[in-house]
Every structure is written in structure tokens, then in C-alpha cells.
């Protein structure tokens, strides 16, 4: 498999959110604004890349029966690192993302890639796979966050676009579901035409 392909498939063909429908909880829960979505996406990318690398390095040492729990421990360790680093260096973002940061450990994308790719490939390819899927995920989150922020708060990345308030519902729970539904419909349409 071409190296470049491993990296790019996470952006469009196998995009975690729009195509594979994985990692939905943080997708809907942290995209109240563009910057929140981006922050969450990058934190998840870090955990995904690091755990992919480590798992592909130790894959031969792990007995098959304890495969999944071992993966979970490795992933949980990196999530704890991300938690502590974010708490120290970006406390505002840490407070906004709240519960969803420790929930990165149960993000189906990370365990999914560990099982499907990292446990069967070398460290460099696993890093590329993690980077591609993670950044694709971050891209999806940023897009969703931007749409919700523009429609709901009238700003993007905290820069005000139009005067007055947006439609509050888009920043709240129902809006998240509805916007994502239409985005997926749009992307399905675009990929059919392409």
C-alpha cells in the first residue's frame, strides 16, 4: 500500500465521522464552536498517533486473549498524559471540553485503528495511519464546529461575523444532531457525483 495513501485515506475516503460513523460522542458534544472542535480533534490525534505507534511496536509481545485490555491500558495512559498536559497549558479549553477528554479512551476510532491497523503493521505506517485518521477526524470536527458556531453564535473562531444573535438551538444538543445529519447528506451527495 502506498505510504501517501495510508495517510490521506483518513481525510475523505475513510473519514471517521462522515463515512465510518465512529467517534460520534465527542463529534456532537464538543463542536459548540470551531476552536473547541479543533482542540478536541488535535487531542484525539495525539492519542491516536502515540497509541498506534506503541501498539505496533509491542504487538508481538501481547498474548491474543488479553489483546483488547492491553490496547485499552496503552490508550488510557496516553489519554491521562493529554488530560494532565491540557489541564496545565490550556485550562480554558480543558474546562470547556470537560468530560470528553477522559472519554477519548473509549473513542471507537482509536481502538478501531489499533485493532484494524496498528496490530498488523509496522510503526511508521501505523504513525501515518494514526495521523491521517486523526487529522481527518479533527477536520470533520472543525467543520461541524464552524457551521454550528456560524449559525448559532454568529462568529467563527471567536471572530464575530454578523451582528445580533444566531439561532441558539444550533449550539445546543438538537442543533448538533440536525447539522450533522444534513452535513452527511451533503457529503453523500457530493461523493456520488464525484
Amino acid at each position, binding site marked *: 500500500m502506498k505510504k501517501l495513501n495510508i495517510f490521506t485515506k483518513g481525510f475523505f475516503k475513510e473519514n471517521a465521522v462522515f463515512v465510518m460513523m*465512529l467517534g460520534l460522542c465527542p463529534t*456532537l458534544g464538543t463542536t459548540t464552536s470551531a476552536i473547541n472542535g479543533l482542540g478536541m480533534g488535535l487531542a484525539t490525534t495525539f492519542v491516536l498517533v502515540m497509541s498506534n505507534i506503541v501498539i505496533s511496536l509491542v504487538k508481538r509481545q501481547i498474548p491474543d486473549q488479553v489483546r483488547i485490555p492491553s490496547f485499552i491500558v496503552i490508550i488510557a495512559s496516553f489519554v491521562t498524559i493529554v488530560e494532565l498536559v491540557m489541564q496545565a497549558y490550556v485550562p480554558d479549553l480543558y474546562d470547556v471540553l470537560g468530560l470528553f477528554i477522559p472519554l477519548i479512551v473509549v473513542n471507537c476510532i482509536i481502538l478501531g485503528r489499533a485493532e484494524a491497523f496498528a496490530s498488523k503493521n509496522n510503526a511508521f505506517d501505523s504513525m501515518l495511519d494514526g495521523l491521517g485518521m486523526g487529522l481527518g477526524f479533527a477536520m470533520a470536527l472543525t467543520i461541524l464546529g464552524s457551521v454550528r458556531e456560524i449559525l448559532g453564535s454568529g462568529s467563527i473562531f471567536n471572530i464575530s461575523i454578523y451582528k445580533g444573535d444566531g439561532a441558539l438551538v444550533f449550539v445546543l*444538543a438538537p442543533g448538533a444532531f440536525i447539522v450533522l*445529519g444534513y452535513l452527511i447528506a451533503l457529503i453523500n451527495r457530493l461523493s456520488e457525483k464525484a
Partner: protein
Amino acid sequence: MEYILIIISAIFVNNVILSRFLGLCPFFGVSKQVGTAAGMGGAVVFVMTIATIVTYLLQKYVLVSFKIEYMQTITFILVIAALVQLVEIILKKVSPALYQALGIYLPLITTNCAVLGVAILAVGTDGFGLIKSTLFAMSSAIGFGLALVIFAGLREQLDLTDVPEGMKGVPIAFVTAGLLALAFMGFSGIA
């Protein structure tokens, strides 16, 4: 009185799926039929309640006592993984039919953000002792099951209606979930 408030708040006002965004993967995966949805809901009630009790005790007597709170994520998820294994084994013996029906979704309760999320929320809420945490977990799981069963009913109906081509399947399911979430927002006037 406080207990009733916890129950109503966890089931309706701050519904685990429709308001807190936890447990979404099974929400869209298992909700195609009411029967399976109900079975999944029951399994989650069991796992979530016991997981919260165990993690609460762990947090109080181990993590805080030895000042290793940063181990919370790792220990909690391991406890949940072990519990789900246990439920799988028990279910296989007690009700093989339900075990077959749930299929892959049973081990997926481990990665269900709802179980880990509720456990973390319970230990993080001030003034929540063991009883209130257990009540909170049980009510949250009931709310999860409720949303799941309602959504399954909605989806069964959606299959019979005339949906525009581009919206068929996933997109219309999401929009419907959004409308359901909007309906549940009406409960916020109660608490």
C-alpha cells in the same frame, strides 16, 4: 425529595443520550428494532449501575486515599471492561437468545462512553454519596434505554415513510434524533 429530583433529572432533563451526547454509537447501531433496543437498554442498566458502584468505592478508598487520582481514567475503564466480560458470560448462560440478538454490541458496551461518562460524572459531583451515585447511574441508564426504545420506534416508522433520496438512512436518522432531543429539552422546565 432530593432522590426524586435525581431520578427525574437523570432520565428526562439531562438525558444521557439526547442531552449529554453519551452512548451515541449504540444509539444509532442498535436502534433499528424496539426489541433489540429494549434488550440493550436492560444490559446497560445492569452494567452502568454496578460499574458506578465499584468505581465510586475505588475512587473513595483507593484513588483519593493514596492520592493517585490521575489513575482514574485507567482504573475506571479496566473495571468496566472486566464487568462487561462478566455480563457476557452470565448472559450466554442465562439467555442465549438475547446474547445472540445483541451480537457485537454487547462487548461494545465497554467502549460505550455512557458507562465511563456516568461513572466519572458520579464521582465528580459534590454531595453524591454511594446511594445517590447508584441512583444517578440507574436513572441515567433507564433514560438511555428510554431514548433508545423511543428512537427504535421512530426508526421503524421511518422505514415505512417516503424519505427524499439524499436523506435516506443515516441523515434522516440524525435529524430525527435532533427533533427528539428538541422534544426532551421541554423537560428542562421541570427541574
